[in-house]
């Protein structure tokens, strides 16, 4: 169990999932939070009134820590492109959970990101042997 948890690829997946979760919680939270006057509204600080925003912040922190762990073991040329999987997960989860629409352009963008990730992930099997 511990071995799986400390595995860099597990941490990369955790980081990606936490970024996605944080965005969803932050969006839900700020939508529910009260609005301030115009002078302060742009800062988004009123979001702190919502517990959902705090959950979002917690996920941001977890994702940052696991990302640092990933950087210790995986080259940036591989880790950073793979981390862009958030651009697949966030629109899909926004569609499922928040009922936001996915346009044709966005849908084709998601497919391109998936294709790119497959291309990058292919040589990862070789790197895996070295870890």
């Amino acid at each position, binding site marked *: 169990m511990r071995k799986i948890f400390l595995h860099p690829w597990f941490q990369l997946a955790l980081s990606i999932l936490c970024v996605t979760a944080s965005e969803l919680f932050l969006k839900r939270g700020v939508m529910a939070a009260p609005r301030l006057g115009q002078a302060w509204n*742009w*800062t988004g600080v009123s979001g702190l009134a919502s517990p959902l925003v705090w959950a979002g912040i917690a996920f941001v922190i977890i994702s940052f820590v696991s990302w*640092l762990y990933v*950087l*210790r073991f995986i*080259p*940036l*040329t*591989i880790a*950073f*492109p793979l981390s*862009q999987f958030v*651009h697949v997960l966030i*629109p899909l989860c926004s569609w499922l959970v928040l009922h936001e629409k996915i*346009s044709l*352009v*966005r849908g*084709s*963008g*998601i*497919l*391109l*990101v*998936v*294709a*790119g*990730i*497959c*291309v*990058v992930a*292919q*040589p990862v099997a070789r790197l895996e042997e070295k870890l």
Partner: protein
Amino acid sequence: MTPVAALLILASLVAFIAGQLLLKHAMATELRGPRFYWYFGTGVVAMTFSFFVTLGLLQTFDLSYLYPFQGLSVIMITLLAAVILKEALSLRLVLGASLISIGVVLVSLS
């Protein structure tokens, strides 16, 4: 887009890319050594700077206008990690990163 806005978009992009490279470099050196603190500290400062400049830009521009510039960071970080951090780079990685960059731009356009 005014020259000031263009400059801010560029500054936020450069700071984000520099931040990722600095954090990677920090994590690859000996942890808790003096060089670690230097790279890690400047990395966090660069990321924070990029975060607040982006926040400020969001006041003026739509997210869909600003986010495509973030898409560029994928290909830039991949190339710079190879040049500056001397990481191995293959044609395959460049192709994958390019596809992802274009994909991220398309995802954020609409």
